């Protein structure tokens, strides 16, 4: 149980970390906290602490506790804000994540942790002592009581409903029990506590406050300051039903404060009554002084609560059983429910939101689904294949039409499954502000990060393969691309550089551009290095334009950095970038201009898994050409083929263009069927900005193919990107056009 809870929390924690990070970076840019920032950060810390403690992250929660207190001090204006404070929080939250991951993996070094904690505490103390600080202005402080649109994070709705169900289940179970053991109470407390945290994160302020009272009650029961009885259990059932209403109302923003206060008062009175019935009179004060005159978030003083409770009597008095007004109350609840369902049938409830918004599904399940669809596609090809062996008569009797229907339906199914795996680019972008910020610090540069196209969706698998290359490119731009602020000013540029990432979807491709306005790539330097390392010759360099020279940074082992820094410069990064992108079936281009900046363009296919291919015959073998690579195809006439150079290189003259020809059978060392080029077929394709014509012997049929990796049981093969299973059950090989062109280019240079 506790392990699944841990995992559950870990997911939540990571999301919170991300939001904390994003906010801190914003704060750093602004140089100060707004009231919203402070509250949000405090809330995040609080949720982290509460939930982590509940699921057993002992050390992590300890650490976060101090941060929470610190944020609380800021909120209560006991701690002044300056850049040091901001810096401190950013660093501490980095540490916090490290501690979390260590503890999650059970390899937290306790001694190390103690040290971290000590330094945290002493840092906090030092910051407290600093007196000569100007107080940061808080302009937005006057947002006041206006019912501000709470951003309700839908991401937590699923969890919310789960927890709600857990609590209700536990309470139902409680009704059947005669005795309540510690385990039962602890579990119930944990659920309620987590739910409180979650609801807070969703922006349900009233609800969480409401829950807090319940939590306090359970806490007392847990600590044995109060005997948990069936009456309490039943009361809680109705209270939970009530809380559900509050949550629903709050989601719809139609809960007014008065209404809510009435409800919470009712609850607190109910609880107080229960406590009175079970304990001595002291119970009252706990709630009364809190709810009435404080509109603020007083409910978070968890620290205080147990202390107060300790003072309370631990003696338990038997409950007089009549007085509870629970029955009456239940009826009211029911009536309210009925009323609501009559008057506002289309009203959004939290459960509905969960149902329509999202469920969490493991990626393995989706992959499984994808594979099954892949199998279906193969089976379909087999059926098509088989139908060809049947007589015309049978085929004409509607078989083909029916097969076409299957074909269409499988395609739709496949698209639907694919769409499940798509995630917005937003989740890719989220990681970068922090990378950039850290590098700015380290390198003493000023760079502003902007992005667009965050809603473009990308295959989850592709995204995973994309993270490393993108990070590499960004680090490279930060290290080599951007100048220091002084240099930039000297060049007459804005002191602050801009790094922009944009993503667009265009004609079956996803194009990601990483644009910096830095110094540009020193192409001559790159060129010299490349000649030095033997990647190209002097003569080659003469015919290359700047962008081609810039592409040389992808050659293995090449680095323009004179000194190796810990950020980049070992010359291993960029060739990995290119390899990674190639293995995703994409390619990368560079445009660079001196002192204007550099643009990296990554062009990726929309999906990895299934594509349309054209079977082509090359010598005795059949290969598959991805259909999206084909610009046009033609059978050349004699006068379209020109021979140039000493080695009689063949060039296709197509309209006004001269397009180099690659004979694929030469590439694969196969005997061609057609000796005469006019009998064979040419396929024109485009890579980067350059067109290339590929010579094949014949075109065969079009086929939808399921991409299967060759790496899994073998390795990469030159000129082949992947394999597939064809209609007759044999393996088909998919041509890697980009790779073929690359290899041919290299050969012609040498």
């Amino acid at each position, binding site marked *: 149980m506790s392990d699944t809870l841990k995992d559950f929390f870990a997911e939540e924690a990571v999301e919170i970390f991300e939001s904390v990070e994003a906010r801190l970076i914003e704060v750093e840019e602004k140089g100060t906290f707004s009231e919203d920032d402070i509250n949000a950060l405090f809330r995040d810390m609080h949720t982290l602490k509460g939930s982590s403690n509940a699921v057993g992250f002992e050390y992590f929660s300890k650490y976060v506790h101090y941060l929470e207190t610190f944020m609380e001090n800021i909120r209560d204006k006991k701690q002044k804000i300056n850049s040091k404070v901001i810096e401190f929080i950013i660093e501490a939250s980095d540490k916090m994540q490290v501690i979390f991951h260590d503890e999650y993996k059970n390899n937290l070094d306790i001694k190390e942790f103690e040290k971290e904690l000590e330094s945290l505490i002493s840092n906090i103390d030092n910051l407290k002592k600093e007196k000569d600080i100007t107080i940061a202005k808080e302009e937005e402080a006057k947002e006041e009581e206006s019912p501000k649109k709470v951003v309700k994070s839908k991401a937590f709705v699923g969890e919310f409903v789960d927890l709600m169900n857990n609590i209700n289940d536990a309470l139902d179970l409680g009704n059947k029990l005669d005795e309540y053991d510690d385990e039962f109470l602890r579990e119930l407390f944990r659920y309620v506590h987590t739910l409180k945290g979650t609801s807070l994160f969703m922006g349900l302020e009233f609800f969480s406050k409401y829950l807090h009272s319940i939590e306090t009650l359970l806490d007392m029961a847990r600590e044995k300051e109060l005997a948990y009885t069936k009456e309490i259990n039943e009361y809680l059932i109705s209270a939970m039903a009530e809380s559900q209403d509050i949550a629903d109302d709050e989601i719809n923003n139609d809960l007014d404060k008065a209404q809510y206060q009435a409800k919470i008062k009712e609850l607190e009175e109910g609880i107080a009554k229960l406590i009175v019935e079970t304990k001595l009179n002291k119970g009252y004060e706990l709630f009364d002084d809190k709810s009435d005159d404080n509109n603020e978030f007083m409910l978070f003083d968890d620290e205080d609560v147990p202390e107060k409770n300790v003072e309370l009597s631990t003696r338990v008095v038997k409950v007089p059983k009549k007085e509870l007004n629970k029955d009456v109350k239940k009826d009211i609840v029911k009536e309210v429910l009925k009323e609501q369902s009559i008057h506002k049938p289309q009203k959004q409830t939290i459960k509905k939101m969960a149902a329509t918004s999202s469920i969490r599904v493991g990626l393995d399940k989706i992959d499984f689904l994808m594979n099954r669809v892949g199998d279906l596609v193969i089976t379909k090809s087999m059926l098509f294949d088989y139908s060809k062996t049947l007589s015309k008569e049978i085929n004409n009797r509607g078989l083909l039409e029916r097969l076409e229907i299957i074909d269409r339906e499988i395609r739709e199914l496949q698209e639907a499954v694919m769409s499940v795996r798509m995630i917005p680019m937003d989740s890719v972008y989220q990681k970068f502000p922090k990378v950039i910020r850290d590098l700015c610090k380290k390198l003493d540069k000023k760079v502003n990060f902007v992005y667009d196209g965050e809603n473009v969706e990308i295959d989850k698998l592709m995204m995973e393969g994309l993270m490393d290359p993108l990070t590499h490119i960004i680090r490279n731009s930060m290290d080599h691309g951007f100048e220091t602020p002084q240099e930039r000013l000297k060049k007459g540029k804005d002191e602050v550089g801009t790094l922009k990432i944009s993503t667009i979807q265009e004609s079956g491709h996803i194009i990601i551009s990483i644009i910096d306005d830095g110094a540009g790539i020193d192409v001559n330097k790159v060129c010299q290095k490349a000649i030095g390392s033997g990647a190209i010759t002097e003569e080659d360099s003469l015919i290359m334009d700047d962008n081609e020279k810039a592409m040389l940074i992808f050659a293995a082992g090449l680095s323009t950095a004179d000194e190796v820094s810990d950020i980049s410069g070992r010359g291993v990064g960029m060739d990995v970038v290119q390899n990674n992108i190639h293995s995703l079936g994409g390619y990368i281009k560079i445009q660079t201009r001196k002192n204007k900046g550099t643009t990296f363009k990554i062009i990726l296919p929309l999906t990895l898994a299934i594509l349309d291919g054209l079977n082509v015959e090359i010598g005795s073998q059949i290969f598959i050409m991805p259909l999206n690579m084909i610009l046009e195809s033609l059978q050349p006439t004699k006068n379209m083929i020109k021979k140039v150079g000493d080695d009689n290189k063949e060039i296709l003259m197509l309209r006004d263009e001269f397009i180099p020809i690659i004979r694929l059978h030469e590439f694969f060392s*196969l005997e061609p069927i057609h000796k005469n080029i006019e009998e064979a077929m040419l396929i024109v394709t485009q890579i980067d900005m350059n067109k290339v014509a590929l010579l094949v012997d014949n075109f065969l049929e079009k086929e939808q193919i399921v991409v*299967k*990796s060759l790496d899994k*049981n073998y390795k990469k093969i030159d000129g*082949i990107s992947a394999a597939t299973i064809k209609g007759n059950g*044999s*393996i088909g*090989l998919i041509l890697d056009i980009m790779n073929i062109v690359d290899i041919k280019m290299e050969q012609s240079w040498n």
Partner: protein
Amino acid sequence: MELIIFEFLDGHYAIELSKTKVILVYKNTMITPVAIEKPWILGFTNLRGEVTPIVDLRIKFSKDKPLYHEDTVIIVVKTEEDKLMGIIIDKIKETKSIDVDDLSITPDMSLGMDPKYIQGLKKDGDDMIAILDIDSVLNIEELVGEGSN
């Protein structure tokens, strides 16, 4: 240790049974050739949806032209790199359980192949059985390697 013993390269060889996944009959197997890979890598077959490479080590280790006949089979093994690969052999003889202590260390003598490919030797009557170390025969360096084979 359970072994699958077969005829191969004019001698008796064996592979650990635990590493063997499937045995395919050569003449019933559709193999898509790959021309530009090493000559001993015959091509790929579809093994229940898995793209499985088939190797003919006889081409790697012998100068004679390999023969393919009725008894030629493909032993599909799983390597320590978790790859499924098929090895063509001349004929399966039997499976046998042997005591690991009975194995003698590979002597550095002419076996027709580098001793590093042999996991151990086992005396079997007058015969000698060489246990192929499939993980070193089929590891990635061998597949990529620049060697003459």
